[in-house]
């Protein structure tokens, strides 16, 4: 499903070149729940941006469903993000002063679907992510952190993506809410969704079935846990 072959990514800032990712290769199969863990500066965010088709690698190959994404044009990358990837960000990134429903419908904008079809899809996704029906028309800034992240998850799900990429989804949440959000991810995984989670907290990473540890742009450990 996802295959990375010898990925490199370097940032050039003036005369200084920083190697963020120095030769990472791994494979993620459909239906897996993978955590990528590492301290800050380890290159995990860069890796996540490459996996999310937000950034392209300096060298190496990134294959998503067999297609080499590293050679895509800007528009092709946009289409890929819309159709295959669902993002959940640390800072939620909801549109401010906008209803929950409208936030979830954002990725469906400019598609061929009619308004009622979009609304139906968005409602389904929200219910799927465990959002209360009576909150659908609340404004995004009136929600609690946990509710906001649920809306963000619903937004990630609305196009039925191949993978869900979560970048520190619990970073702005308290322990209790974090747990609820992580349970939601676990549930989604049990329904067959492929999830890649980026975090620096072992506790959070342990919700996954597989933990990839990254340090200094290289894979340090790749552990699979046995299912009970």
């Amino acid at each position, binding site marked *: 499903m996802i295959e990375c072959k010898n990925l490199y990514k370097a940032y050039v800032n003036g005369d200084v070149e920083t190697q963020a990712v120095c030769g990472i290769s791994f494979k993620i199969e459909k239906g897996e729940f993978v955590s990528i863990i590492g301290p800050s500066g380890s290159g995990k965010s860069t890796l996540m*941006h490459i996996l999310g088709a*937000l950034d392209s690698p300096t060298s190496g190959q990134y294959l998503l469903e067999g297609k080499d994404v590293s050679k895509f044009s800007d*528009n092709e990358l*946009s289409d890929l993000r*819309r159709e295959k990837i669902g*993002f959940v960000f640390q800072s939620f990134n909801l549109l401010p002063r906008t209803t929950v429903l409208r936030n979830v419908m*954002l990725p469906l904008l*400019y598609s061929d679907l009619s308004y009622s079809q979009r609304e139906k899809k968005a409602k389904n996704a929200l219910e799927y992510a465990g959002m209360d029906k009576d909150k659908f028309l609340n404004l995004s800034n009136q929600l609690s952190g946990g509710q906001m992240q649920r809306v963000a998850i619903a937004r990630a799900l609305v196009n039925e993506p191949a993978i869900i990429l979560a970048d520190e989804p619990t970073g702005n949440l308290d322990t209790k809410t974090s747990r609820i959000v992580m349970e939601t991810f676990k549930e989604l995984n049990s329904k067959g969704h492929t999830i890649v989670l980026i975090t620096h907290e072992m506790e959070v990473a342990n919700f996954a079935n597989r933990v990839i540890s990254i340090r200094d742009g290289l894979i340090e450990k790749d552990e699979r846990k046995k299912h009970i």
Partner: protein
Amino acid sequence: MIKDLLKETIWSLSTNKARSGLTILGIVIGIASVITMVAIGQGVQGSIEKNIESIGSNLIVIMPGAQRVGGISQGGGSNQTLTLEDSDAIKTQVQTIKAVAPEATRRYQVTARGANTNTQVVGTVPDYMTVRNITMNIGSFFSDQQVKSSAKVAILGPTTRDDLFGANADPTGQSIRIKNVDFQVIGVTDAKGGSGFSNPDDTIFVPLGSAQHFLAGNDFLSDISVAAADQNSMTSVQQQISDLLLARHKITDPTQADFNILNQNDIIATATTITNTFTILLSSIAGISLLVGGIGIMNMMLTSVTERTREIGLRKAVGIRKLHINLQFLAEAVMLTFLGGLIGIALGWLASLAVTRFVPTLTTQISVSSIFLAFGVSAAVGIIFGFYPARRAANLNPIEALRYE
């Protein structure tokens, strides 16, 4: 897709009412101020031109020169050198003239039925109507016969009529008292507009002889007005009059002439210089307001779009194409500037009407070119600065845009 774009634009503008409102306000003020400013300027120009025209057309005025007492000038018009004979000579001997009107003008206190006013009393002849473009509203002007017999009749200007008898009253048949002499009112002239010390509307006309005998007590004229047949003959008429009067007054050196000749073309030329200067002044004011308005619009657009860099990043991250993001921001900018433009034009128009209403001497004229200029510049500034930063943000890597603070 266009439906989506429109919906998204309207939604985006209406969710951020304060921001949209302020942007529109900037555009409205920019456009309205330019339109009003130009309208007032053109109104002032128009009123200056109208004032000059109300004096008469192709007019040449001969006034007595300065009296010299032991080498000390007493000022223009102080000399008593013009007589009715001079006027008659001009009438009979000068070519290509339409009419000649000798005048004996002075200010007097005038009373009527308890009301009183201080106004200029013009003693003249019926030809004055031709020379000064005077038309009658009520009654008729006095006749040549009444001039010859020094009849005690008077024609009132509308302002004088209002002062003495009340607005729009018909004073014919009533009598007014000038310097203890009773005159019977036989007519009222049409309003000509114009203002100032020699306002043609604030005047009483009496037969020349009556003014000389009963009021001034001498035979001298305060000036002679001559209407040339047409614009082209004015210079030649002026020359002929000058030669004739020099000969009649037995003066050989033209620099020692005891009279001055004022040509309306000179007045028009002076006025044109004034109005041209005025136009430059107004254009610079309008230009500065347009510049200030443009910078205001630019600021609003730049801040509001920069503020939305994160939103643009999010839109990119969830897979909306660059083209669609660009189009949305372009549509927003166009909609804002057009809304602001329409309101601005309406407001500028209303402001111009209000000025006309509350300043009666000024009739503002809204110029179409000022509307196009103000609207064009504001729209261009609004669209460029609404679209360009959005385009820049849409070209950013979505991650950078999302991190933008």
